[in-house]
């Protein structure tokens, strides 16, 4: 194929987004992964790179799911799935587990979201203002407490509605906390001037990305 041929856009799938995030996590970081795409990130960190995963229910050093037949029912993650413990792992009670989160000890938390705003606001727990029984879990603690908050999500809803917005319309989880967003189309930093595009998937141009984004995008300087 000649170099001048137009490239078709190649959006990342869920594992592709997770793998892209994993590339940016250095050895030695303590990391909490939310439910959904963030959970997949652990699978894409190479075994020789030591990253310590934390789970809200008091597990530090979370390992992969156990093979069927050797499930330990007392060892679960925050999504209530069976997990294993890596060498060097430890158990703490809930107040200490959230002191890890709220005390600013996590290098990184990766969460899913319904919406992220250009001022760093995140909405990821309640879908409507009227749902008074929505489950918040540890989302507000993680969003407010981690040293870095990255979000992993599809760039738009299934109906094509932008999720990167000027202002969140869903109930907020925390204000002004998101540092970076990884979508199926792009990586974007949240800066004082708004979303700055760090990179885009192959074949996508800035104007097409802007067309799928509610907030105004900025090119990296």
């Amino acid at each position: 194929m000649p170099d001048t041929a137009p490239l078709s856009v190649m959006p990342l799938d869920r594992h592709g987004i997770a793998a892209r995030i994993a590339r940016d996590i250095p050895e030695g970081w303590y990391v909490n992964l939310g439910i959904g795409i963030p959970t997949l990130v652990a699978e894409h960190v190479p075994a020789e790179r030591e990253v310590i995963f934390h789970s809200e229910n008091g597990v530090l050093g979370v390992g992969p799911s156990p093979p069927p037949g050797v499930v330990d029912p007392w060892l679960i993650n925050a999504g209530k799935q069976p997990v294993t413990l890596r060498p060097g792992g430890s158990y703490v009670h809930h107040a200490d587990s959230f002191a890890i989160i709220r005390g600013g000890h996590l290098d990184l938390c990766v969460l899913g979201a319904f919406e992220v705003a250009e001022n760093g606001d995140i909405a990821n727990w309640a879908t409507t203002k009227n749902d008074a029984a929505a489950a918040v879990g540890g989302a507000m603690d993680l969003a407010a407490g981690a040293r870095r908050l990255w979000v992993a999500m599809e760039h738009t809803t299934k109906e094509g509605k932008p999720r990167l917005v000027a202002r969140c319309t869903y109930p907020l989880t925390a204000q002004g906390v998101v540092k970076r967003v990884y979508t199926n189309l792009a990586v974007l930093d949240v800066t004082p001037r708004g979303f700055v595009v760090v990179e885009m998937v192959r074949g996508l141009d800035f104007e097409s990305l802007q067309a799928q984004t509610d907030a105004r995008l900025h090119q990296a300087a």
Partner: protein
Amino acid sequence: MIDKFVASMEEAMAGIQDGSVVLLGGFGMVGQPDALIDGLIAQGAKDLTVVANNAGTGHTGLARLMELGRVRRIICSFPRSAGSVVFEALYSAGRIELEIVPQGTLAERIRAAGAGIPAFFTPTGAGTRLAEGKETREFDGRTHVLENALPGDVALIEAWRADRFGNLTFRESARNFNPIMAMAAKLTIVQTQHAVFAGGLHPEVIVTPGIFVDRVLHVPYAMPVEKGGENA
């Protein structure tokens, strides 16, 4: 001789009053004192406020206690999950009060109660609807929300090992809310998988010392799974 072991469920549940605030250990099924919840169902106390991470699943345990109309109010972080059918039905019928608390704020409110701290400021929840109506204050330019301690009248706890002094250890992630709830209630009742002789727990591994524990019931072979066999 100090001996916090009780011989029967009736003895374990004795004196729990109507209107009590009950702290219930566990994260989903793991670390949840199922036998003690069944004991509370049989004991009969009503008009309860239950503090737990989840609002029960299926029709057993906490869900059964709610289904029987014994819970007036639930304070939790994650009421809605797969199988929380009883909670959903009661809530939509207006027959149960709900207070949603961020999970870390819930844990810290319980810990604060056990540590004699009446209230604290946290940035968690600031600017969200869970902070509406609450006092706020700026620290280092950031908004913090005032949260009150959450003491219990009764705590129901699941331990892995216990001795007659009430010293406890926990198994893996079944530790969760149990140690802090044991500290935060006037009456702390424990079910333990294993009963060990006095001195049988190495002092270095005791997670909850017996000072926080009032009664211990030996309930061997408790498994953190629903009758269907799956964690929830």
